[in-house]
């Protein structure tokens, strides 16, 4: 399956990625598993996604918990806790 990924704020800046298209095996995957998968790309990725930093995730523009499941065609985003207002 194919998903679209977005990174924001500190994650975007540190990973130097704002968006990417990702091809994944055709089976359900949770946010947590996707994070673990991406963390294998290297130390920076591991630190940003599985380290001490709190990371929040959205699927198709909805905030979701780590056990939420990603489906084919979903837009997934990773970002720090929000600080607007």
């Amino acid at each position: 399956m194919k998903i679209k990924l977005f990174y924001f704020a500190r994650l975007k800046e540190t990973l130097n990625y704002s968006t990417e298209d990702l091809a994944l095996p055709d089976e359900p995957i949770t946010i947590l598993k996707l994070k673990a998968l991406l963390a294998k790309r290297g130390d920076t990725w591991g630190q940003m996604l599985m380290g001490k930093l709190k990371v929040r995730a959205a699927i198709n523009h909805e905030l979701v918990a780590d056990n939420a499941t990603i489906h084919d065609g979903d837009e997934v985003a990773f970002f720090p806790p929000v600080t607007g207002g």
Partner: protein
Amino acid sequence: MTVRVQTEDFDIGFELKQLRLARQDIGAVVSFVGQVRDINEGDAITTLTLEHYPGMTEKSLENIISQAKNRWDIVDALIIHRVGTLQPLDQIVLVAVSSAHRGDAFNACEFMMDYLKTEAPFWKKEVTPQGERWLEAKQADDDASARWNMKK
């Protein structure tokens, strides 16, 4: 309901007037405006840059207004949030609510700000004389948002 995410400044007088005059049964308009302060956590602020998640931002702000409408007897609500680079004394956000009576408008407006602070995908980066830094989310904001789950 109106939701706008924009780099341009906004005119509070105009916005509140639109909201207020929309219906003759409106008796109260409560509003919140946030501005960039010159000092944060002890350091002088040169500029503040707001990043957001286009698409999700608008959806989450509309969702916040819908929740407020479900919880209180309000007529309408408005959220304008700026993004991009701002300076001290620049306006950041306007949240305004119209209703027949004041209690609903006060509650809805404060609820919307508290939820915006914890749910809307905006991120602030400050430039200080010591360099750049991303703002950390505050526990106080999580607490402010969580208390609405306990209120009637």
